[in-house]
């Protein structure tokens, strides 16, 4: 289970303990059923596929009841009624979603709010994987609004000084989900939930977490939603177009980042080999820092961490983050290449009267490049795939598009295969090109 405060989160004073209103609901239901609730960590967006894989028996984690989900899982009666809230900066005159036509609006990928925004014409939806980041970006002006469940908005958005509630744009229910064939489990959990509602325990829990309101009174009469028959789902032409566009994003981000990495790596390796002592030390420190820390972390720091002083666009941050990271690796490839060129080559060039720069540029580098080239081509292919990481800073590239489509289609196989085919279509020609270059520039025995 993942969701953070106030749903489920780690007790800051005891890392083994979980807190949250959903933890208390789960414990209350378990006690009534004579079992013990055991919590499993899972990505929120893939809760349903994991349930289908039997990674756990029950989903109790802010899962909104939607027709798509009702066709896939069996829901108990709801345990919470939420609203979809639009949060904006307090200096903006926005009263409804319609006011945000043409603007960027953030939400959580795969959520009901995401579906709501997708159905609103003219709004540019920006997808996040965490609940805090959209509000951070709203504060900094990267977004014009954020639509998320009121529970999230109250905890993460409305506490911020310059944000305000603009409108309530929808309503929905959280319910507990089990596999459709687990009918006995469904009945047991639903029965326990009905009892907890009837005797006031649910109300007590929600009140304790400050979540009780008039809307929750309706829960007293709500019944479990009836399951819908699974509907067939096929990849539509519009989705194929989205895939192609995402493949384009992947290619452009990767190519731009690789350009940066190749140039930056060259500068680093030359600074390291020929520079004065402080320059050498700086280049070495750079390489160790960027090689020794995860690129994911670097992307977060670049996009969110530096935002107060350097508010980069998501695309720029993606190119910069991947490029700066790969530059460290390219520098090492060039270094190996430079070291493979015998010292006699430089001497022969200097003896002819070449300047040091000419000896490097005309004689040493071309030979070093031949040695480094296969590795560089290999890194480009690796970068193409690593570029999927930039989805954490809201860039919708190929892998992200795959997860979005998979949620829409309620299946991972077809989007996964399409996604894989597109990656191959990008990387295979690259591999061929690299091999051809390698042959043409084949290193020759000195």
């Amino acid at each position: 289970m993942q969701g953070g405060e106030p749903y489920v989160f780690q007790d800051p004073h005891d890392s083994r303990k979980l807190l949250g209103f959903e933890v208390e609901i789960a414990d209350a239901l378990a006690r009534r059923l004579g079992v013990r609730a055991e919590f499993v960590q899972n990505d929120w967006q893939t809760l349903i596929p994991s349930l289908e894989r039997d990674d756990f028996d029950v989903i109790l984690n802010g899962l909104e009841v939607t027709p798509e989900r009702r066709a896939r899982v069996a829901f108990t009666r709801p345990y919470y009624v939420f609203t979809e809230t639009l949060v904006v900066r307090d200096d903006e005159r926005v009263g409804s979603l319609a006011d945000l036509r043409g603007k960027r609006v953030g939400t959580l990928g795969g959520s009901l709010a995401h579906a709501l925004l997708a159905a609103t014409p003219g709004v540019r939806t920006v997808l996040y994987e965490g609940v805090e980041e959209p509000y951070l970006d709203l504060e900094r002006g990267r977004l014009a609004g954020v639509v998320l469940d009121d529970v999230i908005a109250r905890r993460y958005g409305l506490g911020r000084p310059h944000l305000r509630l603009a409108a309530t744009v929808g309503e929905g229910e959280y319910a507990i989900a089990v596999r459709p064939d687990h009918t006995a489990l469904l009945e047991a959990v639903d029965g326990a939930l009905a009892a907890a509602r009837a005797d006031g325990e649910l109300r007590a829990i929600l009140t304790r977490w400050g979540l009780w309101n008039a809307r929750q009174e309706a829960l007293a009469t709500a019944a479990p939603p009836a399951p819908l028959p699974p509907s067939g789902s096929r990849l539509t032409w519009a989705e194929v177009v989205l895939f192609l566009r995402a493949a384009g994003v992947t290619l452009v981000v990767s190519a731009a980042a690789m350009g940066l990495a190749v140039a930056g790596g060259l500068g680093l390796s030359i600074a390291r080999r020929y520079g004065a002592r402080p320059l050498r030390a700086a280049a070495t420190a750079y390489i160790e820092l960027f090689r020794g820390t995860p690129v994911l972390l670097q992307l977060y720091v670049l996009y969110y961490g530096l935002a107060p002083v350097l508010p980069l666009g998501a695309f720029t941050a993606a190119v910069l983050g991947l490029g700066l990271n790969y530059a460290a690796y390219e520098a090492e490839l060039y270094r190996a290449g430079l070291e493979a060129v015998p010292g006699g080559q430089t001497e022969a060039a200097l003896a002819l009267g070449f300047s040091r720069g000419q000896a490097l540029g005309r004689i040493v580098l071309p030979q070093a490049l031949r040695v480094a080239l296969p590795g560089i081509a290999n890194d480009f292919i690796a970068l193409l795939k690593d570029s999927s990481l930039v989805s954490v800073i809201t860039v919708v590239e190929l892998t992200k598009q795959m997860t979005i489509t998979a949620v829409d289609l309620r299946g991972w196989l077809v989007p996964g295969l399409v996604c894989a085919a597109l990656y191959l279509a990008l990387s295979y020609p690259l591999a061929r090109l690299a091999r051809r270059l390698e042959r043409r520039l084949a290193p020759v025995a000195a």
Partner: protein
Amino acid sequence: MTPVVALRGVTTQLGGTAVLRGVDLAVDRGEVVAVLGPSGGGKSTLLRAINYLTPFHAGEVEVAGQRLRPGLSERRDAALLRAVRRRVGMVFQHFHLFPHLSALDNVSAGPRRVLGLGHEAARARARALLERVGLDGQADAFPHALSGGQQQRVAIARALAMEPEVLLLDEPTSALDPRLVGEVLAVIADLARAGQTMVVVTHELGFARRVAGRAVVLAGGRVVEEGPPERLLDAPQAPETRAFLGLR
């Protein structure tokens, strides 16, 4: 006549050990000087001091109208060093041809990049030089496709392309199969006849006798004997020369 190359009291050290211990040597225009002596005697170091590929620690070198002194820096004194090197040709024991360039481009690289000749002019000069060393058919070949003897002849053409005032040859045939030595020595003898000033470090005593006007024996970092090659080889005076020649 002022000498083309003059070394005065040149001393070099390598890790605290003296390699050259105060060497004096003057080479006149058109002269061919053979440098002989046992391995480790400082022959290569002497040659490399002339174009400052190996720095020296005391003394001075006058070459091509420039004065080199100890403590020059590749970075700070780049202009002086380039001025010297563009007029001093060097041929290495292991050729050091540029493997990514054809024979023609190896030879035309210097005139193009250093002398600033146009593309066509540089190639024309290179072509003529390849013909002179007997390789006009190999202009487009890359070094790896050439025999050792051919590679060394390209390397000689590369050095000549700068029209050097003096050509330094560092054991030019030591890395070659015996059957390939002749073709390289023939090219060098040809240059000597044409009046090219040269300093040749060599173990080919017969060649030194035939081609050099003067021989210098370097042992223990000092010039122990110098004179006409016949005299030096037939009637050596210094004990180091006698030892080197295998005489008692």
